[in-house]
């Protein structure tokens, strides 16, 4: 085997409270496609950002063509011939195809101005070379389809003579035909001697394209080798592994009558035919890959999305929330995934965050009653064991786990019937995770019903009574979470590896 084009050795990257990568190794060889496999949150994106100079590793070394390098910036990575094509291509809609290809290294005239003639002709040659002669070089990128944008991104990669091409879920938004074209292109890049890192959740693609694989789990490299020697089952096992010791609260099942019934809930572009029941005192898990449409369904239930069809019945009444305010009125609340952006208001004090949805009850004729607000905030902060020096301090000064408690407190304060948690423990430390889990147990014991969207399999298996698996905007299956439900089953179902009996 030749020298790897790029080699990562013992790369470590930590964020406050989270170890995203822990001494991982990865080697990409010229003329080979390496598949990077792992669950959501296994550290794949962090790795890509480290390789392209967006993140600086806290430890470890990177070698390009055998030489140790320091990728201080995206520009440094670019000059060393490393380029990434992202799921949603990061290009400029308002610039032309040729400008996008040559942005940052466009050919210049004698007067140091952009040489448009030269740029367009070179762009033409590059596009023709990858079989994209149907794309004009002078149209704006916004008028180009997603599949063709990928081709433009590939042309850009070739224009800088990249030796390492990273493709981060390039097929996620493509049609069947477009995927075929992309595969032909990958084969061509491969025969040109590029080292390719291919990130995908879809096993059929991986087996078809890749020569080697590397599996990540919880920020660690847990296996690598040649795909030809490794059956699917083995890879799925590596992805799941033995679950990290996490203790979930045990609770006696006491599930009541249905409190929320959703029938044929559909949206023109995001999801279709979603039907499920949520019972009183139940935790219903929603599992799926990133982009499977879980959050979109929940946001539609919460009245954020317009143009949906279907019937939603809550406590015997048909509801059709058209705004979050209406959903809240019907007793449905939603904890968004982007805690910092959508959940807490970092620049407001804790007590104001907690009382914000309850202002109609804590105020009288529109006038605030601060004492009542504080009392409300204190009640729920105590119940959730929220650690803060003072409820008057800004929510932005809290740790991620405590911020999440602020969001939960604000929703509990309005005494909802149904609480939708979207990735409730994403990016928070283990201790706070356990507190959130324990609290979910308490909620259902008090007769609330919980919908939990989660991408963490141990959490889904540890907390849910039943699990809905979504794939590509539809319900793939519903499982009762008894002892026979395994992580493998969920992953297979979410990735569509084999036909599963529902």
């Amino acid at each position, binding site marked *: 085997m030749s020298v790897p084009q790029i080699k990562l050795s013992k790369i470590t990257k930590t964020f406050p409270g989270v170890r995203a990568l822990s001494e991982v190794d990865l080697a990409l060889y010229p003329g080979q496609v390496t598949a990077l496999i792992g669950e959501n949150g296994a550290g794949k994106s962090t790795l890509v950002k480290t390789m392209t100079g967006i993140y600086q590793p806290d430890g470890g070394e990177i070698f390009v063509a055998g030489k140790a390098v320091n990728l201080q910036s995206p520009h440094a990575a670019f000059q060393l011939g490393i380029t990434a094509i992202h799921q949603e291509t990061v290009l400029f809609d308002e610039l032309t195809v040729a400008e996008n290809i040559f942005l940052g290294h466009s050919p210049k005239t004698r007067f140091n101005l952009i040489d448009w003639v030269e740029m367009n002709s070179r762009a033409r040659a590059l596009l023709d070379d990858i079989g994209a002669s149907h794309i004009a070089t002078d149209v704006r990128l916004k008028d180009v389809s997603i599949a063709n944008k990928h081709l433009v991104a590939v042309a850009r990669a070739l224009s800088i003579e990249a030796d390492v091409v990273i493709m981060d879920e390039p097929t996620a938004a493509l049609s069947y035909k477009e995927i075929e074209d992309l595969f032909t292109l990958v084969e061509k890049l491969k025969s040109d001697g590029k080292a390719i890192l291919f990130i995908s959740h879809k096993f059929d693609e991986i087996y078809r394209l890749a020569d080697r694989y590397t599996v990540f789990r919880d920020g660690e490299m847990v296996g690598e080798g040649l795909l030809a020697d490794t059956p699917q089952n083995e890879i799925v096992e590596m992805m799941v592994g033995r679950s990290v010791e996490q203790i979930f609260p045990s609770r006696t099942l006491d599930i009541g009558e249905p409190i929320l019934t959703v029938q044929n809930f559909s949206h023109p572009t995001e999801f279709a035919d979603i039907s499920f029941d949520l019972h009183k005192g139940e935790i219903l898990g929603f599992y799926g890959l990133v982009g499977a449409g879980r959050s979109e369904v929940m946001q539609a239930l919460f009245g954020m999305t317009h143009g949906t069809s279907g019937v939603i019945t809550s406590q015997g009444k048909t509801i059709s929330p058209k705004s979050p305010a209406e959903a809240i009125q019907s007793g449905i609340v939603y904890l968004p995934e982007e805690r910092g*952006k959508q959940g807490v208001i970092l620049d407001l004090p804790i007590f104001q965050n907690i009382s914000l949805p309850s202002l109609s009850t804590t105020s009288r004729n529109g*006038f605030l009653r601060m004492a009542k607000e504080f009392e409300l905030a204190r009640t729920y902060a105590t119940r959730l064991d929220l650690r803060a020096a003072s409820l008057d301090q800004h929510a932005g000064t809290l740790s991620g786990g405590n911020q999440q408690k602020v969001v939960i407190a604000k929703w509990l304060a309005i005494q909802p019937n149904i609480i939708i948690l979207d990735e409730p423990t994403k990016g928070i430390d283990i201790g706070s995770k356990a507190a959130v889990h324990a609290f979910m147990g308490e909620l259902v014991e008090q007769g609330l019903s919980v919908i939990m969207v989660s991408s963490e399999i141990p959490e889904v298996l540890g907390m849910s009574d039943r699990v809905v698996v979504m794939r590509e905007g539809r319900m793939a299956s519903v499982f009762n979470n008894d002892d026979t439900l395994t992580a493998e089953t969920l992953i297979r179902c979410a990735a569509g590896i084999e036909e599963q009996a529902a």
Partner: protein
Amino acid sequence: MRAFIRNHEFWLAVVVVLMIGATAFRSPGFASPEKLAGIFNDSSMLIILALGQMVVILTRSIDLSMASNLALSGMIVALINAAYPEIPVPALMLLATFCGLCLGAFNGTMIWWIGIPSIVVTLGTLTIYRGFIFLIAGGKWVNADRFSEEFVQYTRYEFLGLPALSWYAIIIVIGFFILMTRTSLGRSIYAVGVNPSAALYTGINIGRTQFVAFCISGALSGFCGYLWVSRYVIGSVEVAKGYELTIVAACVIGGISIAGGVGTVAGAVLGALFLGVMSNALPVIGVSPFWQMAISGAAIILAVIINASSQQKSKRLILKQENAAS
């Protein structure tokens, strides 16, 4: 106490006092109670308008039509007073406020229902509302001799040594202080401005909050329409032309962030007083009007720089604390 010293309003107050002190040094008598009361009276309308603009800016919008709204509402009551002097002035004050409210509600509706950016809507209505003045007045002025005595006196009656105009401003400042810190509407306005996305998820209707903000700025513009016509005893197409930018300037100097969500009643009042003191002080010490414009321009830029740098500092501080906690 330290937080107090760091705060923008505190330093702005210091600057205003220093300006008064420095001018009094050059021209004794500038700091006399009568003169200061006069400056406050001069600044009263700017204070009221700045508060209206503040509410709009807090919700991440801007109202450029305030001065035109003021001129149109003022012209309407001026014409009515000239034609029917027997209608009591308080009724005219309410009418001017109501006219302003309707004009503001029109802005708000365009922004809420049709979703046009506020800067575009109000740039349009800035011209439209001023155009209406031509239509209703036929391009003519309403001169001083056509107003009733009462109409003119309602901004001049004195109470405890201050003219009524000043008292209107004081009452509105108190009202706004309560509105912004003690009502759920005030809380929603801050929440929408500081993080619209989180406010939306909390069930606050962003469009409606902005609509209400425009109604408030409109109503205050309308009320000031009466005050302006009464104080300067003239109704014309040219009334308060270009004044919308002075109002925005007062807000920016007062530390109200154009990005929304940050700003206080005290800041808006001090920003307006700063401009009021400056325009009174500079002629006294013999500075040309050109320099007045340059100085108020420099003050705006300085205020933005100070605000931007102090906000950056506080963000870094948060990060450190978070690191320490985890």
